[in-house]
């Protein structure tokens, strides 16, 4: 640290010209230090993204040579594919219901944990556990629970509730996927919001209490506005991951029954790796990308109305 300061002092002392030259030299050094990760980003991120854009204008079938087909994939997607609009609707339905429930449950849990006198750490760990359990494993266990004749059916039958099997019912299958996604992912937001709640200065809450604000008021008017930047971050990240939902659907329903749980993420897998229409799958991926970009931009625009930054 001192060494850097010393050189900084030494280089700032002489006239402007040599400083610029040394700045360039430092830039070059920095470039070489950054080169390994820059190459990584170029090779494994930028290049595949460009390749997939290029692929979306071809009819590549994984085997054989791709041929350029112009906008044909996109035209087919928006006008001819009987499934696309259903898939889009399913994706948005999943995202909205899952996002709302996720945020409500995780804020609720975070507030509850923050109010505890003891055992806060334990509960944080317990709720965080599913986050570092592999998603596929979680989905398989839940799939066995929900399978026809499985544990869930057994419980419903024992209680004499006429609930049909979740995975073979057109309307309930998506709810099963949402339950599993919530179970697996609510813990992350819970811990995030809980940490934010702990950062709220107790003096604000005490002052409000002395002024006669009820617990309800203190939550809505002091704590929630103060954690709104974290809440915003959690909402954006959750929305992005839920638009990409795949694992749970792959394991539990494969898009079925019918197309009740077919989402964009699953459609990409199905077209690309089951039907080997790589070009077409790439065009769906770009539609998904555009959708995520647009919705994230919308959220950033909306945040001006409800997110409060201290300064």
């Amino acid at each position, binding site marked *: 640290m001192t060494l850097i300061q010393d050189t900084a002092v030494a280089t700032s002392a002489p006239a402007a010209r040599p400083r610029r030259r040394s700045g360039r030299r430092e830039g070059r050094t920095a470039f070489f230090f950054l080169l390994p990760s820059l190459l990584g980003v170029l090779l494994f991120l930028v290049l595949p993204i460009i390749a997939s854009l290029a692929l979306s204008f071809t009819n590549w079938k994984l085997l054989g040579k791709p041929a350029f087909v112009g906008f044909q994939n996109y035209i087919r997607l928006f006008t001819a594919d009987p499934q696309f609009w259903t898939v889009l609707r399913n994706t948005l339905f999943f995202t909205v219901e899952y996002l709302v429930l996720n945020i409500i449950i995780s804020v609720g849990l975070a507030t509850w944990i923050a109010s505890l006198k003891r055992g806060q750490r334990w509960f944080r760990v317990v709720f965080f556990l599913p986050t570092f359990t592999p998603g596929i494993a979680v989905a398989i266990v839940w799939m066995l629970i929900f399978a026809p004749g499985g544990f869930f059916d057994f419980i419903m039958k024992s209680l004499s509730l006429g609930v049909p*099997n979740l995975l073979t019912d*057109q309307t309930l299958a998506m709810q099963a996927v949402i339950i599993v996604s919530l179970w697996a992912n609510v813990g992350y937001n819970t811990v995030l919001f809980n940490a934010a709640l702990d950062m709220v200065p107790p003096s604000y809450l005490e002052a409000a209490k002395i002024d006669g604000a009820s617990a309800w008021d203190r939550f809505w008017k002091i704590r929630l506005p103060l954690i709104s930047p974290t809440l915003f971050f959690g909402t954006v990240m959750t929305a992005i991951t839920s638009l990409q939902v795949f694992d749970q659907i792959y394991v539990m329903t*494969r898009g079925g029954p019918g197309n009740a749980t077919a989402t964009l993420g699953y459609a990409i897998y199905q077209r690309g790796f089951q039907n080997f229409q790589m070009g077409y799958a790439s065009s769906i991926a770009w539609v998904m990308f555009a959708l995520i970009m647009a919705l994230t931009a919308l959220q950033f625009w909306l945040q001006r109305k409800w997110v409060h930054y201290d300064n």
Partner: protein
Amino acid sequence: MKFTHQLAALALAGTAILSTASFAQEQVNLTWQMWGDEKDTPLFQSLADLVTAEYPNIKVTPQFSGWTDYWTRLPVLASSGQIADLVAMQSMRMPSFYGVLEPLDPFIAADNFDKSAFESSIISGLSQDGVQYALPYDVGPWLMFYNRDKFAEAGIAEPKPDWTFDDFKAAAEKLTSGDNYGYAVQAFDFVAQPIALGAEYFNDGNQFDLTNPGYAAAVGKLVDLVAVAKASPVFASGAGAQTGSGRFAAGNAAMVIDGPWSLLTTQASVGFKVGVAPLPRDEGPSRYITAGSGWGISAASQHKDEAFKALKVLTGPKAAEILASAGRALPGRLAEQKFWYDVAAKDIAGARETLQYSFDHSTPFRLNESWNEFENLLTQYLPLALNGDNTTDAVLADIQSQLP
């Protein structure tokens, strides 16, 4: 005398030099990719060793991946140039993947190789547009597996080879009580059973025509068995969903449609006696589709001549005997099928009679390049008809609309 000894020694030395000269030909290492798991390794290694025993300069190394992964990896390996020299192929996937394989016809012609030693339906199953792309190691028709103990308990006569769908339906209904089902339907049943009932899912141009009255009626019969008679549970579309075969093995369903490739592992893992019968027929004559697998030569292989030599050994009589006796495969080679019947399947009632009846009534399995999509769509959409959410006709129309 001494001179003749010397002469003999000289001659011996001469042949030794000559033979080392002939052995000194280039060592060729071939890779051999197929599906399977760790426990299959010794069996397939013993086949690979047969190749080296016959051709000392050829060494074959098997590489395994799981069944589902195999088909995801195959096109990726092929397009990235990492495909093995010898490639396992299943007859139903030939229309999608024949492009990665080398046509075998020139090798077969040059070698005077005898294709008639194999069961004819699988020889055509492993060809595309009349060109042979792989040689088979196993073959089998879809069959009805049944739980003999349950049939005896319920006092139902065991099925005869020419039993009808009505016989099957009556048995399935009689064997259903409470949580136990007479039959457990699976997605593929909607391919094999309609064929046995005389229906076609293709039109004359080999394109999907799922809404034709014959196919819709045949599918409707199976759907009624599930949705109306409740003689079978509904299957779920998920990857990890409990399969009909799983229910059969657990004793929860008395009948299931499967093939000889899983017959012996099923019998070994269950606590009851398994019997097999051909699929039930309609009023008309029976007909059955068969499937099987084999090995071909990758079009990208650098050692195609050596690969064909190896292929001849791997699909040869000795290899077929090994696989058959171990119960791994009902051989595609007709002469070696006896090892499967007499050694591996000797305790299965009706195995020989059923299989021979099915082979005698076999019909070509019609496929096209969209076959994978069709099978996936059946799994995804049929549950809607099976649980009564939608009609059979509507579901078939929906699937048809998504196929080219």
